[in-house]
């Protein structure tokens, strides 16, 4: 559980999804999402409707 992201032993400074640094505004850090591709992401990425996060209602989940 102390592995914040693959290859890293400290919390990342950038969102690996979009590559931009975290801040206290719209790029506030969200997570951790263990078992997901990105353990920490920024709020902007989290809000993209087509990106999956387990704690989010995905509107387009019908087949």
């Amino acid at each position, binding site marked *: 559980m102390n592995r914040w992201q693959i290859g890293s032993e400290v919390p990342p400074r950038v969102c690996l999804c979009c590559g931009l640094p975290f801040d206290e505004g719209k790029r506030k850090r969200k997570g951790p999402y263990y*078992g*997901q*591709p990105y353990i920490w992401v920024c709020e*902007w990425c989290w809000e993209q409707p087509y*990106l*999956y996060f387990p704690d989010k209602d995905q509107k387009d989940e019908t087949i």
Partner: protein
Amino acid sequence: MDPKFKIHIYFMMDMNEYIHLVEPDYYTRFPPLGLLKLASYHRARGDKVSLMRGCRKIKSKQEPSRIYITSLFTWAWKPVWQAVRYYKQNYPKAEVWLGGIYASLLKSHAEGSGADVIWSGLFPEAEDMMPAYDLVPNWKSTLLFASRGCIRRCGFCSVPILEGQINRVKYSIRNLIYQGHTKVIFFDNNILTAPNWREIFHELIELGIRVDFNQGLDAREIDDDVASLLSRMRIDPLVRLAYDYSNVGYYVERAIKTLKEYGIRGRDIMVYTLFNYVDDPEDFFRRVRDILEWGAVAYPMRYEPLNTLKKNSYISPRWRREEVEMVQEARRVLGYGGAFPPYPALIKKFKLAKDFQEAFSLREPTPRRIISSSMKKRIKEVAIEHGMLNRGV
């Protein structure tokens, strides 16, 4: 119950079963390697197996006891869910197992499909088995991993998450080539950083078989030694490199130069150029221009996040949708099969362009195409592989 524990129970059972394997109806150029290995694994146990693509009635009168469904890209999840639902509904006695890349990356999303078991990662017992290529008789190439994993940690890539560091290294692949196959396709993620690359290269030269390092070769690792051995192989269709970040430009240039010194033509070197990630349009423009000036083929690759549920939706904060669409349009109009080949008119256009807008703008007359038929053939093969021509991109 932990699915890994279930396998051990399964091993202890001594009854022949009927196993059905399903590749959902998404676009892919390659046969489902994991399912073909599972087919061999079950046959070794004495089970009967069948393979099917999409949702169709099983021909056998016997009800399957287990159905394995594979998956690929996360954005292709809908056909996977459809397959799970179809087989659950029509074969309620069968246990449905869902595995593959999507299921491994987005396990909690895949659980919503209704599959009985979600399998993450490789199936170790089947991994080293010869795939049951007889189930795909029209396929004539052997698909191989001489190693798994990668030493790099690229944020856009799923390999560090799915496979970790270099592992499962094989020092000989001779016995893994299926009888009658005329080509070997390596899916190794970074073979040049694996300890076995030299043994594998010498073996390929000795065998004289056609070879495709499908996932590309790490430009940082290409030196005289590597280039010399590659030049003695029957590379088909071409050598693939990547120029994903501007700071590896030195290595990409050096790799192209070295490969050319050993007789590999620039038109036979394709460089994947990632965009819409941490770059911006100007950075992407400079990388494409570099590749063309170095005399190789630039193949733009649009970044997709590893958790996307919809293809071509993500626009990086550093890009605008119109700019991403300009790249796609330029690929159609200026390029060939989605790639930018190093023909003189295109090199000139990029060399004279002062910025991204000018380089990718289509307002000026399209440069006259000067592409040889062999170059067209090679680019078309790669484009088909990526689904570019099929989707009319």
